[in-house]
């Protein structure tokens, strides 16, 4: 054991003293800073775009519309209904102008009220007129006083009334009350320039509630499976947790910190993979061609020990670089971005739990290093068998870069069961472990096909078998072939 350890230390010294290793490390670090610069650049462009779009004066547009309708009415020649409709529109638009509310922003509570008033005015019938008039009065009062809490109160009363009247079921009542409670508690829709994700989250909660309630998946229009139901229930819990802790979902691309973290982890891990392939792919072949393999072979160590030490040093390299880069990435996102750190949220036994940003990032990087290890093993195996650095490195890099595309094509055409056993279909472990952190950048995760929708255990087993086969091949070759 100590012999292998001594060989291992030697191998590490040998690797780290090489100039190419240092260059690779610099390239990896540059990849991180490149991502940082890119994200900052995109952020700047986004900010500029926003300022351009806000230059559009909606009030002017609205006034123009009002003028147009008024003109049409004075010209005359309209039938009764159209004229009424136009008058209605004019009065609604004037309300928008009066309370300085942008009409298109329909999740904003004031816009909601105005739309409601307008609807009531259109639909008021003779026998219900007094009642409707009162409601309009109340709504206008709330609008004047800018009283969000009271508006929420009123909505709740409406829901309760509906329930008492029997127009909605108990389930619907509960769901709607939950939404209103959330709205009231976290003042969602209160301010016109609040972050948009809270409203989106709320409407997705509503959709999921409906799916669960009706038993039909609102997205696919199919019967909801028990699995999906569980998933929706968990997601609702997590979404409520997000609202509670003001944590934007990770998909939120408005958040440049999130964008940076996602870009960085993908790009940096790709560069690490290539560096690992370059190092592993030259490990045996370069030494054979330089003759330095004899440096080791002439020491009192059996061949397998020498190869094992080399293998361990490659794995150690990947591990160390991955941890260093994870830490650097955490440091960068904390230094250069003001947004709150992303935490990983998941549900375990019905309760919402979180992993703080730093451990989450490190864990994610380490999980992403597993496919890198597979490709490094592949390169090392080729290096041992072919004893040709150019072949083993280029072939491994090509496989690393091209497998996603090739598999995407194969997966669309082949619908056989065996396609799931192809290792390349099982590389995406990170999305199977961190199910709740959708990764908009990686292609494989966004296309969840039959071939890739396997369980984590299955994928790990396939990769494990694959790794063992490669190990057996390389050790057998290295043990038995002559060193010439």
């Amino acid at each position, binding site marked *: 054991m100590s012999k292998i350890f001594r060989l291992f230390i030697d191998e590490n010294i040998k690797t780290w003293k090489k100039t190419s290793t240092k260059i690779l490390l610099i390239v990896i670090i540059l990849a991180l800073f490149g991502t940082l610069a890119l994200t900052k650049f995109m952020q700047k462009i986004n900010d500029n775009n926003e300022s351009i779009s806000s230059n559009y004066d909606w009030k002017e547009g609205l006034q123009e519309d009002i003028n147009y309708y008024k003109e049409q009415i004075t010209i005359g020649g309209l039938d009764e209904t159209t004229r009424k409709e136009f008058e209605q529109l004019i009065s609604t638009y004037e309300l928008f102008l009066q309370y300085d509310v942008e009409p298109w922003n329909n999740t904003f509570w004031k816009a909601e009220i105005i739309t409601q008033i307008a609807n009531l005015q259109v639909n008021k019938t003779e026998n219900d007129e007094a009642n409707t008039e009162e409601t309009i009065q109340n709504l206008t009062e709330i609008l004047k006083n800018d009283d969000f809490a009271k508006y929420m109160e009123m909505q709740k009363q409406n829901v309760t009334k509906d329930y008492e009247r029997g127009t909605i079921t108990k389930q619907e009542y509960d769901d709607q009350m939950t939404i209103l409670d959330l709205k009231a508690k976290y003042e969602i829709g209160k301010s016109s320039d609040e972050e948009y994700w809270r409203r989106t989250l709320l409407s997705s909660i509503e959709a999921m509630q409906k799916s669960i309630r009706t038993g039909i998946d609102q997205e696919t229009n199919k019967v909801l499976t028990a699995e999906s139901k569980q998933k929706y229930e968990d997601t609702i819990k997590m979404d409520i947790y997000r609202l509670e802790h003001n944590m934007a979902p990770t998909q939120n691309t408005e958040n440049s910190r999130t964008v940076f973290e996602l870009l960085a982890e993908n790009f940096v891990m790709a560069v690490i993979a290539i560096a690992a392939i370059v190092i592993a792919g030259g490990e045996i072949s370069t030494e054979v061609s330089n003759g330095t393999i004899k440096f080791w072979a002439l020491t009192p*160590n059996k061949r397998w020990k020498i190869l094992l030490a080399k293998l361990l040093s490659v794995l150690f390299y990947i591990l160390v670089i991955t941890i260093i880069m994870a830490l650097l990435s955490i440091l960068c996102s904390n230094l250069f971005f003001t947004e709150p750190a992303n935490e990983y949220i998941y549900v375990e036994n019905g309760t919402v739990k979180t992993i703080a940003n730093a451990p989450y990032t490190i864990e994610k990087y380490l999980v992403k290093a597993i496919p890198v290890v597979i490709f490094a093993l592949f390169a090392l195996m080729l290096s041992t068998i072919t004893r040709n650095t150019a072949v083993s490195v280029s072939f491994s890099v090509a496989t690393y870069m091209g497998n996603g595309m090739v598999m995407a094509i194969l997966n669309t055409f082949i619908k056989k069961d065996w396609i799931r056993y192809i290792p390349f279909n099982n590389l995406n472990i990170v999305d199977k472990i961190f199910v709740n952190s959708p990764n908009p950048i990686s292609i494989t995760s966004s296309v969840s096909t039959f071939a890739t929708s396997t369980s984590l255990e299955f994928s790990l087993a396939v990769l494990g078998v694959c790794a063992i086969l490669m190990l057996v091949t390389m050790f057998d070759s290295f043990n038995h072939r002559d060193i010439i």
Partner: protein
Amino acid sequence: MANTVLELKNVNKTFGKRKVISNLSLEVKEGEIFGFLGPNGSGKTTTIKMILRLIDMDSGEIKVAGFDTKKQFEKAMEYIGAIVENPDLYKYMTGRENLKLHARIRNVDSERKEKVLDLVGLKDRANEKVGKYSLGMKQRLGLALTLLHKPKILILDEPTNGLDPAGIKLLRDILKQIAHKEGVAVFVSSHILSEMQLMCDKVAVLDNGNVVKTEEIKVSEQEKTETLDIRVKETEKAIKIIKDKFKIEPKLEENNIVITIETEKVPILIKELATADTQIMAVIPREHSLEDIFFDATEGGKNNE
């Protein structure tokens, strides 16, 4: 009698259809510099690689310090220091760093490291990158690496290749010191005969994968003979004198009289020839006794590939 350190018994090796080594057996003893001679392609390097198990042999047995290199590889390797073809060093590291790598594997303390560097005369330049070393320095550093763990046998494959005369002399001195003072067996392969003659205590000539001749190189002055090329104007007269007074049958090659005579009789011979007024033009000693052995054994080098 000194102990046998390296022993080969009936070793065979075929590459494809070609039999490279057939039934090779030899022994190397403690404190002995053993020259392993043979023309190019005779299987010298193959033999050495088989001893070191870089190449697997087909059949036979190789023992180092009593350990079978196949069954007890690691134990056998503890006693071997070897350089095959070129010293294989990491060019981007300094001499000392290369030495440190080996020292760690061999579990050798730093005192020994410095001592070995001193022995090969590299102490001053140990902190330079190996890439900047001359070939001679690389050879010496390679030697330092092999000596680190105090091996019982040193196996060197063509160590004088590419070295300048000063480098060769330095190497020879180091090897002689190691062998004769520290009792290390040295197994050297080469095809440079003059070198071997100066360095070795014993030589084995390898041809077509087999040892065709093993010869002790005589060191005692009394037994030493000298082959001389004698050029005289009066050739007939000279031959007569040699025949009569020294009882030697001289050969005539071109216009030279070639004789082999004990070294101590050389002055008398010259004196006789001079007094007989044979008009000596030149007496040139041939230092090629090993060459004779070599060519005898390999049939005049006709088997060279």
